[in-house]
């Protein structure tokens, strides 16, 4: 354990000032300290994408980001995607297209979709597939996930 460092960063629009072990992962910070358990741990090694969040607008595996990288960072998790009571169009499309089965990959999948659509609002099917290729899903075969992202892109 290293000496604690003072960190300032934003999570879902809320400013945080916390003393942390600089080697702690963003995933541990989110799940264990901030109790934002919507972000899932599927492997802890950056292989499955279940812990995908937005770090300064880019999709990252939270398990591969450490505290010392977070100074002044802006983080969005699945909990911060909707506006108040209103769910985000990507979340809505996932429900309507039946893209959810066990659900464990879904928060990460949705965050990757969000990063993709922010950068490329009208992606082709191929671009969508590449956009989520770092997010493993074992239930759906990805078909309905891809249609949900297509749908969300159309309705934005």
């Amino acid at each position, binding site marked *: *354990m290293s000496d604690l460092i003072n960190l300032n960063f934003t999570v879902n629009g809320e400013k945080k000032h916390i003393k942390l072990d600089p080697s702690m992962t963003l995933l541990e910070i989110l*799940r264990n300290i901030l109790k*934002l*358990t*919507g*972000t*899932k*741990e*599927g*492997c*802890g*090694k950056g*292989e*499955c994408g*279940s812990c995908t969040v937005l770090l300064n607008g880019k999709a990252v595996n939270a398990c591969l980001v450490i505290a010392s990288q977070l100074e002044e960072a802006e983080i969005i*998790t*699945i*909990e911060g995607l*909707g506006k108040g009571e209103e*769910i985000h169009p990507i*979340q809505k499309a*996932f*429900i*309507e297209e*039946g893209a*959810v*089965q*066990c*659900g*464990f*990959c*879904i*928060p990460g999948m*949705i965050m990757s979709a969000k990063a993709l659509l922010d950068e490329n609002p009208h992606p082709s099917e191929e671009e*969508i*597939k*590449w956009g*989520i*290729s*770092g*997010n*493993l*899903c*074992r*239930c*759906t*075969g*990805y*078909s*309905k*996930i*891809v249609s949900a992202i297509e749908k969300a892109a159309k309705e934005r």
Partner: protein
Amino acid sequence: MSVVGKSVERKDALDKVLGLAQYVDDMHFDNMLIAKGVYSKETYGKIISIDISKAERVKGVVKIVTSKDIPGENLVPIVRKDMPFLAEDVVRYYGEPVAYVAAETIEAAEEAVKLVHIQYKPLETVLSIEESIKEKAPKIHPHGNIHKSYKIRKGDVARGFSEADIIIENEYRTPHQEHSYLETNGMLAVPAYEGGITVYGSMQCPFYVQEGVANILNIPLNKVRIVQTVTGGGFGGKEDIPSLYAGNAALLAYLTGRPVKLVLTREEDFFTSSKRHPSLIKYKTGARKDGTLTAIEVTYYLDGGAYSTLSPIVMWRGLIHATGPYRCENVRVDSHVVATNRVHCGAFRGFGQPQVIFAHESQMDILADKLQIDPAEIRRINAVNVGDETSTGQKLETSVGLLETIEKSVDKSEWQQKRSIYEQDKGDKRRGIGVSSCFYGVSLGAGGRKYERSGAYVEINRDSSVNVAVGTTEMGQGMRTVLSQITADALGVKYEDIYIVPVDSTRVPDSGPTVASRATVMSGNAIRDACRQLKERLGKVAEEMLKIPREVLVWDNDEVYFKQNPSVKLTFKSVIEEAYKRDVHLATQGWFVAPYTTFDEETGQGWCYFTYVYSTNVAEVEVDMTTGIVTVLKVTAAHDLGKAINPALVEGQIQGGVVQGIGYALIENLLYDKSGKMINPNFSTYIIPTSVDTAVIDPIIVEHIYPDGPYGAKGFGELPIIGVAPAIVNAVFHATGVRMKELPVTPERLFSVIGEKK
């Protein structure tokens, strides 16, 4: 207004897209300890000593348990009790649990795990089926290396082969497959009052877990409460082994008096959880010139790994389906599941069938090629229909949609045209189209007769909302949605008013496991039984309110009305209000026992399953002849499942199953080093299909109503993976002329054969 047959929104979708669904690792209790396992670093060895003294001194460590701390029986109750919760004198595979640590923090637990010192005396290992069946092979268990054998004897195979115009004989091999559910296994055990214990966790089979916990702690079943948490995928992988994790978490909670959470890392899950059995299959088929089968002889072996877990019944299911969904009067099948010093194998979607079906569907394709018959046609010629018999002498009485799945998948995929178009490909990239057919016996059948019953508890609240408790579980397949649809129709109320409560072993009697596509039929029928009783009680109330005999009342869409004059009606709500005023009992238990099944171990004959689902898959591939890389272009998958209660969920099952099948056919394989240690226990080196490894998937639903199922449904979930690998391998043959008899068809393997041919 029926909701059955409609693609209504999933009950659990909103929670899951919001990140609100609570998986076990998302749960927390005050005063909770974190558990970590000490797993064997020896493949096969005698345990000389276990020294926990250094580990115990790590700050924050509260308890370390080894087999000596177990108050009950140190055996996980599955089919045959041979797997210990914690290794005692011997470890039989690399990764076997030897001890568990409970500590205040995960860091302390991890530190202690490193300091537990175990001394082994290595023993000579057995690492393959071939090694295991050698006469002088080292024995892994006192009873030897055969976990179990089963056979089928039907007709006279010698006569059958003498009547054949052609006989083909081949050997096939298939690998381990890891389930790769995205949520690893996890359990949270919490001490309860009066010596009881509650275990929350990720699982398919709460009643297996309940038995396991009672067994390790030596307490009665009534002191063990199991609550299933939202489960992040199962595919069979959370059928047997959760009992082991739950038992160890419960042991630590019991001995410390504190809540204990045990969640596995991905690597730990790879090392310790059950896998799909590798197989070696020797298959001999005889047929007449016209393609009709005259005899089938099969001898096959499964690698069961170090412990038998579910192996006997996995193999039994493979046995029953070994000859495929075809008529054949002369059958001889021998099957053996053997022990090796590799991880135990258990349930994985398809449950012993994908192995034998890869073999029989390759055989059918080879026959078609040799006899110059179209591959789809040879299946049509032999396909079972209503009135035909299976290899075990079971007459198929109703709901046999195989022929329709062949016709529809062939038509929709434009089979004929593509056969000839793809044959024109002569360059480096060559396309091919292949087909496979298969069937799947629903539920446990005669192989698991003692579990073939399910309960349901249905309660109508005073605001007319409805609670349903069942003993089968949601693991992503959509059971809560399907059972809500069944309940809504059974009571004539809205889908939105149904709530399936979390599965809790104290709410319904032991309802058997959630496996084998059985939840729709078993829990669905139990729910209908409960709803029938409730409507009987409500009928009396409505009858008096409307002054119309209840026999002519119709319950539909939140109303009850007179059949002959629908304007004479009441709202469901008003009937419930009246029933509450009259103190009518609006809660009840439903019960369902599966129809008759039986099996004779001596002859291998019997009425094995109460019904079967059928499918035909057509796969199209493109093979790069310069690299051996196979790209699956499209899979057209037609499935007869009786009735699709929710077509969108069925499509989801087909799409997911097809992609798992692509992984099984082309990519997935667990690798071991010479010492028997698994060397790819992670998603960087054990590769499962990503979004760019998929194909166009065209699901086709075929509905041959099963009269004893809820609304005609037979159940669904297992079938979609089963026929995929052979359809792909047959397409590879069509593209290249190369017949691959071992899975997975990796570029290296395929290229080496293409190279030889050149």
